[in-house]
């Protein structure tokens, strides 16, 4: 079994985001909170599962509804030292998407902002996710 937390100097704080971008403030709040931890150099693992995977669908834009477009916040994650996002494979399958079908709007934005290290997506099985959670300092669900 791979220990994905072994690269962290201390147990990470895991953020499980299971809401779509438009279902309320949970998705946005998750990113804000994760970035707050990252500011204090706390290792952060950000995981999308359930409807949370829909946050990464391309070309989402809240301008017409005068809503904040979450992809812009995703683009800022690299600036806070969060360079990888885990996506639960089973959730992707449940919504009918393959990992490479999701164009990562955030990565494109980060690239446009000349980030040194654009955001990467990695699909993980639930069993691997369980191991990550087991080794974490705390888990926050949004």
């Amino acid at each position, binding site marked *: 079994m791979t220990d994905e937390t072994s690269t962290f100097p201390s147990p990470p*704080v895991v953020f499980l985001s299971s809401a779509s971008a438009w279902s309320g*403030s*949970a998705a946005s*709040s998750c990113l*804000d*909170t994760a970035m*707050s*931890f990252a*500011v*204090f150099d*706390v290792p952060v693992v950000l995981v999308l599962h359930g409807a949370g995977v829909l946050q990464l669908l391309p070309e989402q834009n809240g301008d017409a509804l005068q809503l904040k477009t979450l992809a812009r916040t995703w683009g800022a994650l690299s600036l806070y030292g969060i360079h990888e996002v885990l996506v639960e494979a089973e959730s992707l399958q449940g919504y009918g998407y393959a990992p490479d079908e999701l164009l990562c709007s955030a990565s494109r934005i980060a690239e446009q902002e000349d980030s040194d290290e654009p955001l990467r997506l990695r699909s993980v099985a639930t069993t691997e996710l369980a191991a990550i959670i087991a080794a974490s*300092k*705390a*888990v*926050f*669900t*949004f």
Partner: protein
Amino acid sequence: MSSFAIIVRGSPFQPQAALSAYRFACAALAEGHEIKRLFFHEDGVYNASASIVPSQDELHLPRAWQTLISEYQLDAVVCVASALKRGVLDQQEAQRYAAGSGNLLPGFVISGLGQLVDATLGADRVVSFAP
């Protein structure tokens, strides 16, 4: 004995979350555990509102929190971003945004997410109650 950071993310009216958090806090304190910090986040900030008036036959959860906080001298922090969005303001914030008078219950303080980070790192256990 353990120290807990308790995160409350549900309003007093959302099923179970806030009430469960309150009951957990009471039980933990009764058993001699320490609560390092109560952190009220997102809709949980409504637990700190003095403007809430439940029906007479319902538990007044904000006042119950206030009593618990006072009795045990707990550190009860309300997330500033969540609170401003939802109109839960202390006197200072109310004046800053010309939003009338403050409605934050005494005993609660408004602060930032850094307090959540600090509580998470400093407590033995973090327990989050969300709807």
